[in-house]
Protein backbone atom coordinates (compact mmCIF):
# COMPACT_ATOMS: atom_id res chain seq x y z
CA UNK A 1 0.00 0.00 0.00
CA UNK A 2 2.69 2.39 1.10
CA UNK A 3 4.75 1.38 -1.89
CA UNK A 4 1.78 2.15 -4.10
CA UNK A 5 1.43 5.72 -2.71
CA UNK A 6 5.14 6.36 -3.20
CA UNK A 7 5.07 5.11 -6.75
CA UNK A 8 2.06 7.31 -7.55
CA UNK A 9 3.81 10.31 -6.01
CA UNK A 10 6.95 9.44 -7.92
CA UNK A 11 5.01 9.27 -11.17
CA UNK A 12 3.39 12.60 -10.41
CA UNK A 13 6.77 14.27 -9.83
CA UNK A 14 8.17 12.70 -12.96
CA UNK A 15 5.30 13.92 -15.08
CA UNK A 16 5.58 17.38 -13.51
CA UNK A 17 9.28 17.45 -14.31
CA UNK A 18 8.54 16.47 -17.90
CA UNK A 19 5.87 19.15 -18.19
CA UNK A 20 7.98 21.97 -16.79
CA UNK A 21 11.00 21.26 -18.94
CA UNK A 22 9.82 19.96 -22.25
CA UNK A 23 13.36 20.58 -23.43
CA UNK A 24 14.43 17.42 -21.66
CA UNK A 25 11.81 15.20 -23.29
CA UNK A 26 13.15 11.83 -24.38
CA UNK A 27 16.31 12.63 -22.46
CA UNK A 28 17.59 14.71 -25.40
CA UNK A 29 18.10 18.38 -24.60
CA UNK A 30 16.52 20.63 -27.22
CA UNK A 31 16.64 24.43 -27.36
CA UNK A 32 13.91 26.41 -25.61
CA UNK A 33 12.65 28.68 -28.36
CA UNK A 34 10.77 31.79 -27.21
CA UNK A 35 7.41 32.42 -28.86
CA UNK A 36 7.10 35.15 -31.50
CA UNK A 37 4.95 38.16 -30.74
CA UNK A 38 2.84 37.85 -33.84
CA UNK A 39 1.54 35.04 -35.99
CA UNK A 40 2.88 34.84 -39.54
CA UNK A 41 2.00 32.79 -42.59
CA UNK A 42 1.89 29.03 -42.41
CA UNK A 43 5.21 27.27 -42.84
CA UNK A 44 7.22 30.31 -41.71
CA UNK A 45 8.93 28.47 -38.86
CA UNK A 46 9.88 25.47 -40.99
CA UNK A 47 11.17 27.70 -43.81
CA UNK A 48 13.15 29.90 -41.46
CA UNK A 49 14.61 27.07 -39.40
CA UNK A 50 16.47 25.80 -42.45
CA UNK A 51 16.85 28.89 -44.60
CA UNK A 52 17.02 32.01 -42.46
CA UNK A 53 20.69 32.55 -43.12
CA UNK A 54 20.31 32.40 -46.89
CA UNK A 55 17.18 34.53 -46.96
CA UNK A 56 18.78 37.17 -44.79
CA UNK A 57 21.98 37.17 -46.83
CA UNK A 58 19.99 37.70 -50.01
CA UNK A 59 17.91 40.44 -48.41
CA UNK A 60 20.99 42.14 -47.01
CA UNK A 61 22.62 42.56 -50.42
CA UNK A 62 19.35 43.77 -51.94
CA UNK A 63 18.99 46.34 -49.18
CA UNK A 64 22.53 47.63 -49.00
CA UNK A 65 23.22 47.79 -52.73
CA UNK A 66 19.81 48.36 -54.29
CA UNK A 67 17.95 50.14 -51.50
CA UNK A 68 15.14 47.58 -51.42
CA UNK A 69 13.74 47.85 -47.94
CA UNK A 70 10.79 45.54 -47.40
CA UNK A 71 9.87 43.98 -44.09
CA UNK A 72 10.22 40.46 -45.43
CA UNK A 73 13.44 38.74 -44.33
CA UNK A 74 14.79 41.96 -42.83
CA UNK A 75 16.79 41.58 -39.64
CA UNK A 76 14.86 44.46 -38.13
CA UNK A 77 11.59 42.59 -38.68
CA UNK A 78 13.10 39.39 -37.19
CA UNK A 79 14.23 41.03 -33.96
CA UNK A 80 11.00 43.00 -33.68
CA UNK A 81 8.65 40.04 -33.88
CA UNK A 82 10.95 37.73 -31.93
CA UNK A 83 11.58 40.22 -29.13
CA UNK A 84 11.77 38.57 -25.73
CA UNK A 85 10.70 40.65 -22.75
CA UNK A 86 13.24 40.83 -19.93
CA UNK A 87 12.57 41.36 -16.22
CA UNK A 88 12.00 45.09 -16.89
CA UNK A 89 9.44 44.18 -19.60
CA UNK A 90 11.76 45.72 -22.19
CA UNK A 91 13.11 43.60 -25.04
CA UNK A 92 16.36 41.87 -24.07
CA UNK A 93 19.55 42.34 -26.11
CA UNK A 94 21.81 39.63 -27.50
CA UNK A 95 23.76 39.79 -24.22
CA UNK A 96 20.92 37.90 -22.56
CA UNK A 97 20.81 34.13 -23.07
CA UNK A 98 17.05 34.55 -23.37
CA UNK A 99 17.41 36.39 -26.70
CA UNK A 100 15.60 34.58 -29.51
CA UNK A 101 18.68 34.15 -31.70
CA UNK A 102 20.81 32.92 -28.84
CA UNK A 103 18.29 30.28 -27.80
CA UNK A 104 19.26 28.16 -30.81
CA UNK A 105 22.70 29.50 -31.58
CA UNK A 106 24.00 28.80 -28.08
CA UNK A 107 22.56 25.31 -28.32
CA UNK A 108 24.15 24.67 -31.71
CA UNK A 109 27.39 26.44 -30.71
CA UNK A 110 27.23 28.63 -33.81
CA UNK A 111 28.32 32.20 -33.15
CA UNK A 112 26.26 35.06 -34.56
CA UNK A 113 28.21 38.16 -35.47
CA UNK A 114 25.26 40.13 -36.89
CA UNK A 115 24.86 42.00 -33.66
CA UNK A 116 28.38 43.40 -33.54
CA UNK A 117 26.97 46.03 -35.88
CA UNK A 118 23.21 45.52 -35.96
CA UNK A 119 20.90 46.28 -33.10
CA UNK A 120 19.62 43.11 -31.45
CA UNK A 121 16.64 44.95 -30.04
CA UNK A 122 13.59 46.16 -31.95
CA UNK A 123 13.50 49.82 -32.93
CA UNK A 124 11.95 51.53 -29.93
CA UNK A 125 8.38 52.53 -30.62
CA UNK A 126 5.17 52.76 -28.70
CA UNK A 127 3.59 50.14 -30.94
CA UNK A 128 6.12 47.56 -29.94
CA UNK A 129 5.73 48.28 -26.26
CA UNK A 130 2.00 47.66 -26.64
CA UNK A 131 2.71 44.46 -28.50
CA UNK A 132 5.03 43.29 -25.74
CA UNK A 133 2.50 44.13 -23.07
CA UNK A 134 -0.15 42.18 -24.92
CA UNK A 135 2.26 39.28 -25.16
CA UNK A 136 2.99 39.35 -21.43
CA UNK A 137 -0.73 39.30 -20.64
CA UNK A 138 -1.28 36.34 -22.93
Amino acid at each position, binding site marked *: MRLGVFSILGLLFLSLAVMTSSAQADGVPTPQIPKALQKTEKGHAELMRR*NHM*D*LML*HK*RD*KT*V*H*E*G*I*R*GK*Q*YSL*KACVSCHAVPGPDKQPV*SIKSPKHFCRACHDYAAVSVDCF*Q*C*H*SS*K*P*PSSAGLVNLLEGFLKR
Partner: protein
Amino acid sequence: MNIDTENRESTNTARRNFLAGIAGMAGVSIASGVTLFSFAEAKEAGEAVTSKVRWGMLIDTNKCEDGCTKCVSACNKENGIGTTGRAETDPQWIRKVQLRDPKTGNQTSLPMMCQHCAEPPCVDVCPTGASFKRADGIVLVDKHSCIGCRYCMMACPYKARSFVHEALEDQKSHAPRGKGTVESCTLCVHRIDKGGIPACVEACADEAGGAMLFGDLNDPKSEIAKRVAKYASRQIRADLGLNPGVRYQGI
Protein backbone atom coordinates in the same frame (compact mmCIF):
# COMPACT_ATOMS: atom_id res chain seq x y z
CA MET B 1 13.25 27.92 -53.91
CA ASN B 2 12.44 31.35 -55.20
CA ILE B 3 13.68 33.82 -52.67
CA ASP B 4 13.34 36.87 -54.89
CA THR B 5 10.00 38.08 -53.67
CA GLU B 6 10.22 41.45 -55.34
CA ASN B 7 8.21 40.62 -58.43
CA ARG B 8 8.62 43.57 -60.77
CA GLU B 9 5.75 42.50 -63.06
CA SER B 10 3.18 42.65 -60.32
CA THR B 11 4.12 46.15 -59.17
CA ASN B 12 0.93 47.78 -58.04
CA THR B 13 0.63 50.84 -60.24
CA ALA B 14 -2.54 51.99 -58.47
CA ARG B 15 -0.52 52.40 -55.30
CA ARG B 16 2.15 54.26 -57.19
CA ASN B 17 -0.40 56.69 -58.62
CA PHE B 18 -1.80 57.17 -55.14
CA LEU B 19 1.68 57.92 -53.79
CA ALA B 20 2.35 60.33 -56.63
CA GLY B 21 -0.89 62.10 -55.72
CA ILE B 22 0.15 62.44 -52.11
CA ALA B 23 3.58 63.65 -53.17
CA GLY B 24 1.96 66.32 -55.30
CA MET B 25 -0.14 67.54 -52.42
CA ALA B 26 2.81 67.58 -50.05
CA GLY B 27 4.82 69.55 -52.56
CA VAL B 28 2.09 72.19 -52.73
CA SER B 29 1.60 72.32 -48.98
CA ILE B 30 5.07 73.73 -48.34
CA ALA B 31 3.88 77.28 -48.36
CA SER B 32 7.12 79.18 -48.74
CA GLY B 33 7.55 77.84 -52.24
CA VAL B 34 10.67 76.07 -51.14
CA THR B 35 10.55 72.33 -51.62
CA LEU B 36 13.45 70.72 -49.85
CA PHE B 37 13.61 67.81 -52.22
CA SER B 38 11.84 66.45 -55.24
CA PHE B 39 8.84 64.37 -54.23
CA ALA B 40 8.33 62.99 -57.71
CA GLU B 41 11.25 60.61 -57.31
CA ALA B 42 9.97 58.84 -54.18
CA LYS B 43 10.28 55.15 -54.91
CA GLU B 44 8.35 52.23 -53.55
CA ALA B 45 9.92 50.18 -50.77
CA GLY B 46 10.28 47.09 -52.96
CA GLU B 47 11.86 48.93 -55.88
CA ALA B 48 15.57 49.11 -56.62
CA VAL B 49 17.26 52.50 -56.89
CA THR B 50 18.04 53.69 -60.40
CA SER B 51 20.57 55.99 -61.99
CA LYS B 52 17.74 58.26 -63.16
CA VAL B 53 18.26 59.95 -59.80
CA ARG B 54 21.46 61.64 -58.68
CA TRP B 55 21.20 62.75 -55.11
CA GLY B 56 23.13 65.85 -54.27
CA MET B 57 23.42 68.70 -51.86
CA LEU B 58 23.92 72.41 -52.26
CA ILE B 59 25.38 74.29 -49.32
CA ASP B 60 25.08 78.05 -49.15
CA THR B 61 28.06 79.10 -47.03
CA ASN B 62 26.61 82.62 -46.64
CA LYS B 63 23.86 81.11 -44.50
CA CYS B 64 26.21 78.82 -42.56
CA GLU B 65 27.11 80.43 -39.27
CA ASP B 66 30.51 80.26 -37.54
CA GLY B 67 30.40 77.98 -34.55
CA CYS B 68 27.01 76.47 -35.38
CA THR B 69 27.22 72.69 -35.20
CA LYS B 70 23.54 71.80 -35.48
CA CYS B 71 24.19 69.60 -38.54
CA VAL B 72 26.96 67.73 -36.74
CA SER B 73 24.89 66.99 -33.64
CA ALA B 74 21.88 66.02 -35.75
CA CYS B 75 24.07 63.55 -37.67
CA ASN B 76 25.52 62.10 -34.48
CA LYS B 77 22.08 61.68 -32.97
CA GLU B 78 20.51 60.21 -36.09
CA ASN B 79 23.25 57.65 -36.66
CA GLY B 80 24.09 56.91 -33.05
CA ILE B 81 27.64 58.25 -33.20
CA GLY B 82 28.83 58.72 -29.66
CA THR B 83 32.14 59.75 -28.19
CA THR B 84 34.62 57.50 -26.47
CA GLY B 85 36.25 60.48 -24.79
CA ARG B 86 39.22 60.04 -27.11
CA ALA B 87 38.43 62.59 -29.80
CA GLU B 88 41.33 61.55 -32.04
CA THR B 89 39.83 58.16 -32.76
CA ASP B 90 36.16 59.09 -32.61
CA PRO B 91 34.29 58.52 -35.84
CA GLN B 92 33.11 61.64 -37.59
CA TRP B 93 30.70 61.71 -40.51
CA ILE B 94 30.30 65.46 -40.83
CA ARG B 95 32.47 68.26 -39.46
CA LYS B 96 32.55 72.01 -39.59
CA VAL B 97 35.47 73.60 -41.41
CA GLN B 98 36.60 77.19 -41.00
CA LEU B 99 38.20 78.93 -43.97
CA ARG B 100 40.07 82.23 -43.69
CA ASP B 101 41.34 84.37 -46.51
CA PRO B 102 44.62 85.76 -45.09
CA LYS B 103 44.56 88.74 -47.50
CA THR B 104 41.14 90.04 -46.50
CA GLY B 105 40.52 88.29 -43.20
CA ASN B 106 37.22 87.04 -44.60
CA GLN B 107 36.03 83.94 -42.79
CA THR B 108 33.79 81.23 -44.13
CA SER B 109 32.30 78.31 -42.27
CA LEU B 110 31.05 75.19 -44.01
CA PRO B 111 30.08 71.60 -43.27
CA MET B 112 32.33 68.95 -44.78
CA MET B 113 31.30 65.34 -45.24
CA CYS B 114 31.42 62.60 -47.86
CA GLN B 115 31.01 64.47 -51.15
CA HIS B 116 29.37 61.48 -52.86
CA CYS B 117 31.59 61.69 -55.92
CA ALA B 118 30.49 60.42 -59.31
CA GLU B 119 34.01 59.00 -59.67
CA PRO B 120 34.81 58.05 -56.08
CA PRO B 121 38.48 57.22 -55.43
CA CYS B 122 37.46 55.23 -52.33
CA VAL B 123 35.61 52.82 -54.61
CA ASP B 124 38.57 52.57 -56.98
CA VAL B 125 40.98 51.48 -54.28
CA CYS B 126 38.77 49.15 -52.22
CA PRO B 127 40.22 45.63 -52.41
CA THR B 128 37.00 43.83 -51.47
CA GLY B 129 34.35 45.87 -53.25
CA ALA B 130 32.94 46.98 -49.92
CA SER B 131 33.22 50.63 -50.88
CA PHE B 132 30.65 51.17 -53.60
CA LYS B 133 28.47 53.72 -55.31
CA ARG B 134 24.76 53.10 -55.40
CA ALA B 135 22.92 53.65 -58.67
CA ASP B 136 21.46 56.91 -57.35
CA GLY B 137 24.91 58.33 -56.60
CA ILE B 138 25.20 57.63 -52.87
CA VAL B 139 28.65 56.35 -51.93
CA LEU B 140 28.48 53.75 -49.17
CA VAL B 141 30.49 51.10 -47.34
CA ASP B 142 29.06 47.59 -47.35
CA LYS B 143 30.30 46.68 -43.90
CA HIS B 144 29.56 43.01 -44.53
CA SER B 145 32.56 42.90 -46.85
CA CYS B 146 34.71 45.69 -45.35
CA ILE B 147 37.93 44.27 -43.91
CA GLY B 148 38.97 47.53 -42.29
CA CYS B 149 42.12 48.07 -44.36
CA ARG B 150 41.46 51.83 -44.46
CA TYR B 151 42.80 52.23 -47.98
CA CYS B 152 39.67 54.25 -48.82
CA MET B 153 40.42 56.63 -45.98
CA MET B 154 43.79 57.37 -47.53
CA ALA B 155 42.33 57.74 -51.01
CA CYS B 156 39.61 60.20 -50.01
CA PRO B 157 40.75 63.80 -50.66
CA TYR B 158 38.06 65.13 -48.30
CA LYS B 159 39.08 63.09 -45.23
CA ALA B 160 35.45 62.07 -45.07
CA ARG B 161 35.82 58.55 -43.75
CA SER B 162 36.37 57.22 -40.25
CA PHE B 163 37.39 53.89 -38.80
CA VAL B 164 35.55 52.37 -35.88
CA HIS B 165 38.29 51.48 -33.41
CA GLU B 166 36.26 50.23 -30.50
CA ALA B 167 33.42 47.79 -29.97
CA LEU B 168 30.03 49.47 -30.01
CA GLU B 169 26.78 48.79 -28.23
CA ASP B 170 23.20 49.92 -28.70
CA GLN B 171 23.54 50.99 -32.31
CA LYS B 172 20.53 52.44 -34.05
CA SER B 173 18.43 49.87 -35.90
CA HIS B 174 18.59 51.92 -39.10
CA ALA B 175 22.33 52.62 -38.91
CA PRO B 176 24.37 49.47 -38.24
CA ARG B 177 27.94 50.33 -37.26
CA GLY B 178 30.69 48.18 -35.85
CA LYS B 179 34.30 47.80 -34.82
CA GLY B 180 36.82 47.13 -37.54
CA THR B 181 34.95 48.73 -40.41
CA VAL B 182 35.19 52.08 -42.18
CA GLU B 183 32.20 54.37 -42.27
CA SER B 184 31.16 57.74 -43.58
CA CYS B 185 28.16 59.91 -44.37
CA THR B 186 25.42 57.80 -45.97
CA LEU B 187 23.33 60.84 -46.92
CA CYS B 188 20.92 59.24 -44.42
CA VAL B 189 20.17 56.57 -46.98
CA HIS B 190 17.57 55.00 -44.68
CA ARG B 191 15.62 58.25 -44.76
CA ILE B 192 16.04 58.81 -48.49
CA ASP B 193 14.70 55.33 -49.27
CA LYS B 194 11.55 56.30 -47.39
CA GLY B 195 11.28 59.60 -49.26
CA GLY B 196 12.89 61.68 -46.53
CA ILE B 197 15.83 64.09 -46.35
CA PRO B 198 19.15 63.79 -44.49
CA ALA B 199 19.08 64.62 -40.77
CA CYS B 200 21.66 67.41 -41.15
CA VAL B 201 19.60 69.16 -43.83
CA GLU B 202 16.49 68.88 -41.69
CA ALA B 203 18.27 70.23 -38.59
CA CYS B 204 19.81 73.12 -40.53
CA ALA B 205 16.41 74.10 -41.92
CA ASP B 206 14.61 73.76 -38.59
CA GLU B 207 17.15 75.09 -36.11
CA ALA B 208 19.70 77.09 -38.10
CA GLY B 209 19.98 79.18 -41.25
CA GLY B 210 18.74 76.63 -43.77
CA ALA B 211 22.07 76.59 -45.54
CA MET B 212 21.71 73.04 -46.85
CA LEU B 213 19.54 71.99 -49.76
CA PHE B 214 19.10 68.36 -50.67
CA GLY B 215 17.62 67.00 -53.87
CA ASP B 216 17.89 65.23 -57.19
CA LEU B 217 20.45 66.88 -59.45
CA ASN B 218 19.12 64.94 -62.43
CA ASP B 219 15.58 66.29 -62.14
CA PRO B 220 15.45 69.69 -63.88
CA LYS B 221 12.28 70.54 -61.95
CA SER B 222 13.89 70.05 -58.52
CA GLU B 223 14.84 73.06 -56.41
CA ILE B 224 18.48 72.02 -56.26
CA ALA B 225 18.78 71.60 -60.05
CA LYS B 226 17.19 75.02 -60.60
CA ARG B 227 19.51 76.65 -58.09
CA VAL B 228 22.72 75.14 -59.42
CA ALA B 229 21.60 76.16 -62.91
CA LYS B 230 20.90 79.75 -61.86
CA TYR B 231 23.64 80.52 -59.36
CA ALA B 232 27.37 79.88 -59.39
CA SER B 233 28.35 76.97 -57.19
CA ARG B 234 31.61 75.12 -56.68
CA GLN B 235 32.72 71.60 -56.07
CA ILE B 236 35.62 71.39 -53.64
CA ARG B 237 38.78 70.18 -55.36
CA ALA B 238 36.98 70.21 -58.70
CA ASP B 239 40.45 69.91 -60.26
CA LEU B 240 40.52 66.24 -59.28
CA GLY B 241 37.64 65.55 -61.68
CA LEU B 242 35.71 63.45 -59.19
CA ASN B 243 32.43 65.30 -59.81
CA PRO B 244 31.16 65.42 -56.21
CA GLY B 245 27.43 65.50 -55.58
CA VAL B 246 27.90 68.09 -52.85
CA ARG B 247 28.26 71.65 -54.11
CA TYR B 248 29.00 74.90 -52.28
CA GLN B 249 27.82 78.42 -52.85
CA GLY B 250 29.76 81.46 -51.66
CA ILE B 251 33.30 80.07 -51.63
